[in-house]
């Protein structure tokens, strides 16, 4: 049995509490608040204590899906990514870069957001990037 505990940061509200995710053989089994965090100082709220629960839910999306004949069907990464890139190239050529828009996210990491807005601005050539900060 391989037990591990890994320091992480809460994906819920803006407090930014940190905790250790406990895993046994690659399965998430629990959450322990970090006692040394200056934010939460060893405490967590009801959502925080259960923050490991949704990660390995059977309802997670696990495969790329592409709409074919009106239905979303499982496809390979290659097929899905080629489809997106081709379609974006075509729309940019036909309608210009500002016909493409991006919603970045308050839920993904800084690195994820940086790469996304860089793709929008440097590759597509549009500043149409926003996220739901106001919502």
């Amino acid at each position: 049995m391989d037990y591990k505990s890994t320091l992480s940061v809460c994906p819920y509200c803006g407090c930014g509490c940190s905790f250790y995710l406990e895993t046994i053989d690659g399965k998430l089994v629990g959450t322990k608040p970090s006692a040394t965090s200056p934010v939460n100082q060893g405490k967590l709220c009801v959502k925080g204590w259960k923050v490991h629960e949704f990660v390995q839910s059977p309802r997670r999306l696990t495969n790329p899906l592409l709409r074919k004949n009106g239905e979303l069907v499982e496809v390979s990464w290659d097929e899905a990514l080629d489809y997106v890139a081709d379609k974006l190239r075509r729309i940019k050529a036909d309608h210009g870069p500002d016909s493409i828009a991006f919603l970045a996210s308050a839920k993904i990491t800084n690195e994820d957001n940086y790469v996304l807005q860089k793709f929008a601005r440097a590759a597509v050539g549009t500043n149409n990037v926003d996220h739901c900060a106001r919502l």
Partner: protein
Amino acid sequence: MAGLAAAFGSGAMTNSIEELAGADTIFVIGSNTTAAHPLVADRLYRAKKNGATIIVADPRKIQLALTADLYVSQALGSDAALINGIAHIIIKEGWQNQQFIDDNTEGYEEFKAMVQGYTPERTTELTGVSAEDLYFIAEKYAKAPAGSIVYCMGITQHTSGVDNVKSLANLAMLTGQIGRESTGVNPLRGQNNVQGACDMGGLPDVYPGYQKVDVPEIQAKFAKAWGAELSPKAGLKIPDMLSGLNDGSVKALIVVGENPMMSDPDQHHVEQALKKTELLVVQDIFDHQTAQLAHVVLPGASYAEKDGTFSNTERRIQRLHKAVEPVGDSKADWEITQEISNRFGYPMNYASPSEIMDEIATVTPQYAGISFERLEGEGLLWPCPTQDHPGTKFLHAGGKFARGKGLFHAIEWRAPAEVVDEEYPLWLTTGRAHVHYHTGTMTRNSPSLHALMPEGFAEINPVEAERLGVSEGEMLQLTTRRGTIQAKAMITDRVRPGMVFVPFHFMEACANVLTNPALDPVCKIPEFKVCAVKLDKAA
């Protein structure tokens, strides 16, 4: 954020969470802290224990109101009037910090002239808060050695949201309650990385680090760093993207980690726009209403399955570490974007998030001293301009504002976009419940949390319940000019007679079918916090 940036030159929380415990007076307005930011609430309770005066202003009698030294229930949408009324008393009694105003601010005289009109009598009429309570707030806040303001979406989600924030900034400058330990104007960010998404340029008018896209020198700097030609024109905000989809000027929408079908106001309007896309790509961890409309759905890895950083509400950049392998074939969002970019014809070659952060540091002044090694442990609070800089606990030290002088804004109160009338006689407001989070994609997939609160509800006052002949748990029908939902009645004096509260986590009783998409003219935030509603017992 636009409001604070206009007043101070930076839109972020001015002080750190830790410092709240050391404040002498804390004025909490439009923040249901206990439910939405529990570990900030923990500091407020601790401050109270240390002898601080806690003042809560909220139309709903939230949990924090029960322990506050003073709780006032202002009328929905009357915040700017309340704040101006408090400023009126401070100036009339000579409690302002004239030295601070003279040394560090501009625009004071106009502001002073404007608040003349907010006499206690008029303020009471507009807000429903008594003159005695107004004096208490004014005196306790102005005279406190360290006074702090805490606010959240109750202030911002209005057509006058930016004005409300500017009004709070006025109050802090008027009393010099900023730029010192345990003071400041402190917006609590609703989502874990909303600060980071803004910092990283997830906004239509700025590159990373709030550097304007329409300033030629800045644009040249990024064009060089990224080896690409860049657009000099600010992009579209979300509501404009939706109108663009409707009028055909926008063809493709890439949505990463968001569910606009649930989170945006007037769901029917959003659905109509999304159905017009030539390409709708949704990248997320769970299926949701927006994904169901997509042409392509890409499975992202969750926070527990990747390395990276989040920036919390107090500007603290913290490391998350990969604890488990991504489920199925899911991938980190940066990897997905990189692969699309490579196929699109703009090569990217990051081997890890740490490498991405190294690039962020080279183009983002506030993050210039950040690297993954330095973030191990407690993380760092930006601005952190150099590799030996310890980070910054509070902004605008000594009244030296990021924009130079702090700017007073003379702002009159404006009524909400929709007010009650004969047909829609009740006020509707929306918000969060303690167990759930935002559109519920994560918490409603968490078995323990789902068990604690499996379904939506509508809070109504006992007076309303009696009028309708409804008892606890019976179904109510709520109707606004946008749509109709049904929800179980929760009968409670948390809401006043004439008011209804609906949490927005539940798709089957979706608050945003009802809400008003009227926007603040500057930052385009929708007026989620107030609209007019009709209430019936469900047939």
